[in-house]
């Protein structure tokens, strides 16, 4: 999920992921073994493009659906 280092210079995606994961887990007091890290990197390589695209998506104009009830359609189709 992390493509750049602190300086903004591009990192190898796998290296960036390892850095992000190990630091993030350490902040939570967690460790990951090498085999666990390998799985995380593989999973991240698959999902990173989709997560990145979602992060880049312009969704700030989406009016939230208040108290959404998934058992039925949205209360209003046109939020404006």
């Amino acid at each position, binding site marked *: 999920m992390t493509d750049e280092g602190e300086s903004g210079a591009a990192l190898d995606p796998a290296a960036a992921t390892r850095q992000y994961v190990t630091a993030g*887990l350490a902040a*939570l007091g967690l460790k990951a073994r090498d085999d*666990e890290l390998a799985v*995380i990197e593989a999973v991240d390589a698959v999902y990173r493009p989709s997560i990145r695209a*979602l*992060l880049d998506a312009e969704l700030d104009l989406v009016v*939230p659906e208040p108290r*959404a009830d998934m058992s039925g359609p949205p209360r209003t189709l046109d939020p404006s």
Partner: protein
Amino acid sequence: MRALDRPLREQAEAVASDDADPAELLEEALARIEERNPRVNAIVATFPEESRRMLAEAPRGPLYGVPVAVKDEWPLPWRAERLGAAAHVGRAPAPGESGPYRALRDAGAVIVGVANMHEYGAGSTGHISAYGPARNPWDTERCPGGSSNGPGAAVAARLVAGAVGADGVGSIRYPAAYCGLTGLKPTFGRSTMAGHHVPQTTTIVSGPLCRDAADCRLLAGVLFGGALDAAAPEQLRIGIVPGELWEDCDPEVAAACRGALEALREATSGTVAEVDIVGREHVLISSILIGQTEELAGVTPERVAALPDEVSLVARALLRYRLLLPAVAISKAEAVRTVVRRSLAELFERVDLLAWPTVPAPAPPLENPTVELPSGTHPADFANPRQAGIANLAGVPAISVPVGRSGEGLPIALQLLGPWGSDELLLDAAEALEGANGREWVDAAPPLAA
């Protein structure tokens, strides 16, 4: 034909009319499980005394005396759910009367076994479980689909004629598709969810896996708390979404599904039109992010750290990964959900149903659960939610219907989606499709059950 080999509704009719002895049916089901289950590993626990007690106390309901199985996701009064895992993350569950248990009990059904599931429900393949993988009865070296792998394999292997699964990101529809069954993901909130380990869910539903739509209608009615009416659908307006949902599929899958779509259109004197869903490009990741993070409320770093090695490497890694997902991505996934729900609501004013393949390729090997698609080789767990996740994201019902077989003899399935509350229409359409196909695909049994 032995009573146990009949469809669910015919077993119920046979018992109700005294053509079948429910005690004999139960013993036959237990014996069938003992004899056939080792080849498919669909049932992970039986409890003959509790099953016999259920039968002895069973009311004369719509499933009186009929053996069924329940996914390892639901507590029973004599057994806590284990989620296909060697250890729980957090509070250990307790035995209890889950909603599906009560519904089945009150319908007179007899639970003969707990069915396997993909560990923690976190997979579309069913190849990981603390009990070992369930195996696809059509080819026991193939994935049965997950996470309701046990219900799918149990029904396809004719251990039982109906099973209750759960569907959070396609988990009823994948095993239905891989195992040649019919699987209904109900409208969110219509089927009982009492006692589920994720009470705050906005995506997961209980639902039936059976051979055909009529059996799903019967079992869904039990889970809904009221029978579902049947009607012959006419002039169905079917929407198809151009792009990867149809085009990035195994050519055999796309061809069989297009043939089925045309058969359904013709059978109902309907129409097929191209439509699009706003936000579609983010549906896959949004459904995964929301579905997979809803249940994190009970997760703490300490609990993750304490998981034993008996929990799979994949699960231990994924739990760590989920703790690090950016909050903004979850928030944006919720915005996508809003966009998609509004888009679907508008679409369903113009079409009655949407249709595309349930899964983009037939069941992959257990040893290598990846699929070959026009866009390349992908983990099945990445490709499948693209097809199924939208129903959970939006809350709408969806059904997987068998519509063919690949050159390797593996089932192929078409998915139909309808507006909120249209579960009956989906079942009607599925029955129309079965009729249009001469029931070829719903009546077929895999070799080990033939």
